[in-house]
Each structure stands twice: as structure tokens, then as C-alpha cells.
């Protein structure tokens, strides 16, 4: 029961962030700026959940994101699952309470995700110089925002997990 509550809590938290980012992008449309911080959806599942529990959250978030994207359905799922696996493996070699390491991990995931999507969309349609400049700007902007919020976001979700019965003190250091 405790496990289900933890999954649900993180899933709802991610859904809230997802809705907020969508609304923010709608507001930023007037400036031709787009924010992509999808790495937030898989940080806590990769850092704190068992592999299958985290995978449920990540898969749901990926399918939800994919439903809106004009790319072959499942693109986000593939990218999210690969990133989740790599982040999960990386989490066993890092200090999970160290915010700077979490930020670097988030930046690497998000940067990889945006790069993959940029290359895929260049393959699916015409891509001139403006395309690459625009996507470089959006990537830098997204990574800057992510660097500001990733640490805080993981702290907040960790507190939520503790509230729902997770006991991090009983764990051995994960490094």
C-alpha cells in the first residue's frame, strides 16, 4: 500500500509539473521560446525507486508527452526508457543527496533528449540554419531553467516520499 502511495504521489507530482510546463509554453509562444524540461519526470523514479516501480511512472509520463507530439508515437517512450535506465545505473555511482550531481544528471538527460528530438525532426522535415540556431537557443534556455529547478524538485519529491513512508535513513549510502 505504502509502495502504491509513493508511486501515485510522484506520478501526480509529475503530472502537475507537466501541466504547468505546457501552460508556460503556451504563454511563452508569443516570444517564440519553448521550454523542455522532461528530465524532471524521470529524476526521482531513477534515483529512488526500484526499477519496475520507476518504470511505471516513466512510461506513463512518456506516453502522455507523446500523445501531443507530431512524431511517431512511442518516440518519447523509447527516449525516456533509455534515459531512465542510464540514469538508474548512474544513480548507484553518485551521491543522491548531492544537488550538484543531480543537476548534472538532469542536464545530461535533458540535453540528450533534446538533441535526439532535434536530429529526428531534422530527418523528418526540412532543416535550415535557422532550425539549428533556434533549437540551440531553446536547449540552452531549457537547460538553464532545469539547472535552477532540478535540485529543488528532487528535494521536494524526496520530502513527499518521506511523508508517504519511505525511509532513506535505513539505506546504505548508494555510492
Amino acid at each position, binding site marked *: 500500500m505504502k509502495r502504491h502511495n509513493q508511486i501515485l504521489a510522484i506520478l501526480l507530482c509529475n503530472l502537475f509539473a507537466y501541466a504547468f510546463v505546457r501552460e508556460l509554453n503556451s504563454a511563452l509562444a508569443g516570444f517564440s521560446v519553448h521550454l523542455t524540461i522532461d528530465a524532471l519526470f524521470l529524476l526521482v523514479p531513477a534515483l529512488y525507486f*526500484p526499477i519496475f516501480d520507476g518504470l511505471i511512472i516513466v512510461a506513463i509520463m512518456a506516453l502522455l508527452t507523446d500523445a501531443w507530439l507530431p512524431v511517431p508515437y512511442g518516440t518519447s517512450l*523509447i527516449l525516456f*526508457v533509455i534515459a531512465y535506465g542510464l540514469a*538508474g545505473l548512474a544513480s548507484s555511482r553518485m551521491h543522491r543527496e548531492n544537488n550538484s550531481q543531480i543537476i548534472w544528471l538532469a542536464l545530461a538527460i535533458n540535453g540528450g533528449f533534446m538533441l535526439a528530438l532535434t536530429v529526428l525532426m531534422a530527418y523528418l522535415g526540412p532543416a535550415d540554419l535557422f532550425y539549428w540556431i533556434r533549437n540551440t537557443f531553446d536547449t540552452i534556455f531549457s537547460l538553464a531553467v532545469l539547472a535552477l529547478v532540478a535540485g529543488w524538485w528532487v528535494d521536494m519529491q524526496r520530502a513527499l516520499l518521506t511523508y508517504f513512508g519511505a525511509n532513506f535513513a535505513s539505506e546504505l549510502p548508494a555510492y
Partner: protein
Amino acid sequence: MPKKRFYPKKTLAVIIVLLAAWWLTPTFIRSFTRVSFFEFQAPLWSVSSHLTEMQQFWSLRSHSKFELIEAGSEIARLNAAQKLRLQEFESQQVELARLEQLLNLPSYPKFRYEVTRVIRRDMSGWWQQMVIRKGKNYNIPNGAAVVYSGGVVGRVKEVHARTAVIELVSSRTFRMAAHFKNDERPVTYVGVSNLSFSIPKGQVAHVQVNLTVNPENPRHLLSSRLGGVFPDGLTIGWVDRLTPSNDGLFKTGSVRLDKRLLSLHEVAVLIPIEIPQAE
């Protein structure tokens, strides 16, 4: 929480199995999943749009009566001018029908305007699209033209139960038939990637070499009915420079689109009216 959660071999196996399962999933299941996930979140955006409208309503309520009276009289003036134009339009329509009958010409396609609110805008470097609050429930057809007071907005790309996705005229994959004002020769309009903090732009191709444009007097690019989607004469944008294309047969140029395109709140979908054929 377990101490060690990710083992390399197990993680790799899980990823491979999941990806293989997704790859083997039949297309209809994927489509069903996509529609389900889309429809699941669509009400959230509709509610958000309704809340924004309510917020605007309450902010408008705070205006003084004098402001409302002033706005009312302004609308009355505009209404009178529009009524005169409507009369002129109706007489032109009658004349057009008479000429069509006289010359035995096929009539132009007719459209019904379905005005709708924009509930979400998505202007990334990858794609440029927006979501409107009407879909199958208002018989919005796939591929229909979408316009606003400033001209062409785009084309309906996907239709869902209560929402529809529009591909914007500034999108990289958008193209349509067009022509310049006072020049009926067809040209091709193509959307291009837009830089941040700049006005949206497009590109015009297949322009005849004898057509000239100067930056002081930009030429008006209009929609053409040749594509079969848009009616003739809707504004696409303005062209202030043309350069010879690589093959030297035509000219190409950059099209300046309206800035309002990025922050639209209301658009109209043009739904073709089926004219019954005479027996």
C-alpha cells in the same frame, strides 16, 4: 526503499524487452493508446482555457460604465460600416452567381466559419502548432483551413473528440499555393524555422523572374484557391525582397508574417459547404 536497485544486466534486459514489446505492439493498439492519452488530458486544457476566460470576464467587470458606453458606441460605428460592406458583398455575390450561370462556370467552393478559442500554443523549433476547443463535436474536418482577422493561420492537422490540432502557417512542414496582390500567377509558400524573439517568417518560391519587389514597398502575398483548401485573397504576409533561385528559373524570397500569429486567442475554421448538385 531497496539498497541497490539497478543492476546493469537486469536494466539492459528490461530496456530491451520493453522496446521490443513496443516495437511488436500492433498499430491499432498504439493508435488507441495515443488517442486515449490525448483525450485523457484534453479536458485539462479546456478547463484551463475556460478559467482564463472567466478571469478576463471578472477583470472586464471592473471597468467603469463610461468605458463600456464608449466601447459600445465604437462597436455601433463599426457595425454600421460592416452592414454597408455586407450589402455590397451580397450584391457582388448575386452578380457572381448570375455570371456563373450565364457563362456556365463551376461555382467557387463555399465555406461556413466556425469560430473557436485557442486553448494551447506550442511554438518550438521542432513544430509550430496550436490546439482549438472544437473538434468532432462541431464537425471540424481534417485538413480544413484556419483563418483569423489578419489572414491565414494554418490547417487542421488532427481532429479529436472536443479539440483539434492546427499546423501553423509558420511551421516548417507547411506549404500552400499563393499569389501576389494584383498578380494572379501562382507561387508556393513554405513555412520556415523561426528564431526566438523575432516575428514569424516564411518563404515564397517559384516566383516569376519579371516580378520585382523593393523593401520600401513590400508586396502583399495572398492565398490562392488552387490548393483547394483556402479561399482566394486571404493575407499570408508581406514580401520585401526577392532573390534569384539556384536554378535561375524563378525567384525566392522571405515572407514576413503577422506577429499576432504567435499569440492568437480566437480563430475560425473554414468548413466547406457541400452544394447539392442539380439533377
